[in-house]
């Protein structure tokens, strides 16, 4: 992704990638749409079977490819279509968020959420909130400074 157009902070529009589970959050986002709920258009949604399927590589790759913020969202505890996928994910993301914080990544750029199929409004609020937070932080220059090779 080419990000040259919105690199300036004043008219910066964050690029948010959302990895969502297909059973709850994706359907919730769908509901937000059919309910005509307005929310920030900065989010690009990627549908996956379950939060348990969301590998942390996806998140790193999103940052590498120019994302300024990442949302990971799925079913509430107890609601997982596969019974326990979100429980495993919860532990994984807790540790991942800690590690990223330790490596110096601002934790506002990485937001986890539970959004059910009935929570279209929550989805809209979540996206707005993350977009605003990331907009306040500015472009993710830190990660963008990581070049493929040194002399580039």
């Amino acid at each position, binding site marked *: 992704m080419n990000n040259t157009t919105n690199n300036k902070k004043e008219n910066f529009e964050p690029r948010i990638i959302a990895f969502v589970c297909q059973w709850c959050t994706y359907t919730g986002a769908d509901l937000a749409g059919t309910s005509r709920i307005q929310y920030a258009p900065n989010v690009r949604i990627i549908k996956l079977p379950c939060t348990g399927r969301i590998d*942390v*590589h996806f998140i790193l790759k999103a940052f590498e490819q120019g994302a300024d913020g990442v949302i990971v969202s799925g079913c509430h505890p107890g609601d997982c279509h596969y019974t326990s996928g979100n429980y495993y994910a919860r532990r994984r993301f807790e*540790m991942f968020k800690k590690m990223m914080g*330790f490596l*110096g990544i601002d934790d506002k750029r990485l937001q986890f959420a*539970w959004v059910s199929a009935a929570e279209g409004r929550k989805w809209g609020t979540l996206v707005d909130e993350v977009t605003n937070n990331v907009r306040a932080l500015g472009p993710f220059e830190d990660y963008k400074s990581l070049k*493929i090779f*040194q002399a580039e």
Partner: protein
Amino acid sequence: MTTNSNQSNQNANINYNDLQSEIRHLAKDLLESKKVRIVIGYGSGPLNSKPVPVFITDANDVDRLVYNEFCFNNLSIYLTKAEIKAKAPWAIVVKGCDARSVIGLVVENQIKRDDVFTIGVSCNGVKLEGNTLSKCDTCAVKNPSNINVNKVIGNIKTASSTSASTLDKELEQLNKMSAEERFQFWKNEFDRCIRCYGCRQICPHCFCNNCIAEKSAPQWISTTPGSRGNFAWNAIRAFHLVGRCVECMECSRACPMGIRLDLLNHYLAQEVRDSYNFVAGMDLEQKPPLTTYNLKDNQDFIK
């Protein structure tokens, strides 16, 4: 990576000759009685003060086994190597920290507990180039009798250290920094990475036949030694070891560029301990925390 502590004085109390001859006797018995087919231990190396891993299959060769304060290698890495795996049952010389790796491998079903006879040697810290390794500061298994080993050799009694270890102090420093400063610190560290994968190859718990770094369709981690691929590789390596790393810090020692992997491992191990009350490699019954869950797990960070 190393500290000048006063442990060298305590080491004087350990009679390495006794430990060594006890190891040899035991190895001879095990091989002669055909309880094991191979003994993995330390042998004298080509350069002074650098013992090397040796593999003894003949009871007449046990005199090649040595033991001294420079035996820093974690030999359990060899248990998952194809050519040695085929030679089970094995006996292996382990320090407390290495014994934790063996337990970790058993817990993760890489080896069978009955296939391995662990010769647990009491250890008061190992030395590299004259300095005791900093991982030894807070070692809780100097005498491996409190973890699952087949035979304990030597009997040192050390009170667990009350002062903060060098690693803890450094971790505190790092946590005090701003996120920006920490990012620069780690960028600086990872930028030096030459992608020799020494950290992966020496890690007993990096046993995947196909490492994520070797997969090319899709390619998650750039193999080019640049900032981007290096950051991804080092982050993912550490993350894949969350709740599994026993902090033997062999990766840190193997790294030719001196990247502070020990700090990252130590941080994650502390977080795992605090969040899930789990310390890797101590218990044969407890599952690694990321392979299980609890209904009441913390979710403060989730909206």
